[in-house]
């Protein structure tokens, strides 16, 4: 993988922490290669149910806590973050056309060579699917000579069965400490998950966290026009 062949990467995911769980290895390699990375983060994860473990957040304090975690992770991963201002769990009810135009205007301004988003229909969370669909539409609407490459991330259990193996698989193992640091920066969201992984590791004897987080797979989207 020649990371330095790209001039600017834009990540489009809906929640603060999607970038760390899903693509912080990939982001790290791009940054090491000197490629700027901008994260367009759809919502503040206002409706997340993880409140820290032990508990330290509630429904009303969570948005500001997650915003601060996101700003902190921007420093950890050395990326620029733009918050798009949608509300968690409501993206699929927004006008897809408008969201696509919103994203398109941002992409035209940033002019990335690569966009990474969720694979619509194969990304489990309704916000992932909705924002992924809007991002695909936004890139599709760009002039073909200015259109960036698009990598779509699928996370559903049936992804390989239906879509086949991902075109690009990034192994985060060599920089795994960085990925862990990014994930842990989203303290409110990561603590419970890490506890569960530790329990799973004790019963399986394997490092479940590393096993699940090591590879970041993407499908290269083809635009037929």
């Amino acid at each position, binding site marked *: 993988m020649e990371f330095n062949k790209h001039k600017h990467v834009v990540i489009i995911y809906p929640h603060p922490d999607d970038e760390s769980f899903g693509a912080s290895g990939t982001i790290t390699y791009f940054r090491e290669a000197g490629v700027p990375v901008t994260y367009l983060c759809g919502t503040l994860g206002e409706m997340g149910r993880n409140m820290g473990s032990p508990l330290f957040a*509630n429904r009303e304090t969570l948005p500001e806590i997650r915003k601060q975690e996101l700003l902190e992770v921007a420093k950890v991963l050395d990326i620029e973050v733009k918050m798009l201002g949608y509300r968690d769990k409501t993206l699929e009810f927004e006008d897809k056309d408008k969201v696509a135009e919103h994203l398109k205007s941002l992409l035209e301004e940033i002019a990335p060579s690569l966009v990474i988003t969720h694979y619509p229909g194969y990304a489990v969370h309704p916000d992932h699917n909705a924002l992924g669909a809007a991002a695909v539409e936004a890139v599709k609407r760009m002039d073909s000579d200015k259109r960036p490459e698009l990598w779509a991330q699928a*996370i559903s259990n049936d992804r390989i069965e239906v879509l086949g193996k991902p075109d690009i698989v990034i192994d985060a193992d060599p920089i795994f400490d960085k990925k862990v640091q990014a994930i842990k920066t989203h303290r409110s969201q990561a603590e419970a998950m890490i506890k569960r992984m530790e329990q799973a590791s004790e019963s399986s004897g394997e490092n479940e966290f590393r096993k699940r987080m090591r590879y970041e797979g993407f499908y290269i989207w083809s635009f037929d026009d």
Partner: protein
Amino acid sequence: MKPIKMEEVQQKLESFVNKDVYVHLETTNGAYARHFDKKAYNVGAYIRNAKVQFSRAKIVGEGEFHRVGLKMDIGWIYAEGLTHWNVDDEGRLIMAGHDDVGRLMVAIQIGEKPFGQ
């Protein structure tokens, strides 16, 4: 958020009786329930800033788990599984029920000012 103390919560609940108040009511088991367990179902619902009045408000419960019922002229508001509470800077009552790793399962919140959008 702190573990529920029924007498203190009851007192706070009563301060909202017969007033126009805004209620946030929610339950969720997350968007990944079925992803991690094929036998599970993704279930959730919330209503934010329902403007209501109630004439009775009561908290009951056993051990760490509590229920709240609010009696309105033409119906009820109900939440089960509440474990923690707090009063925020705006004087709004925030209550929620969490699982063993701190994940929210249910919430009911009452305030004289609406909650942020």
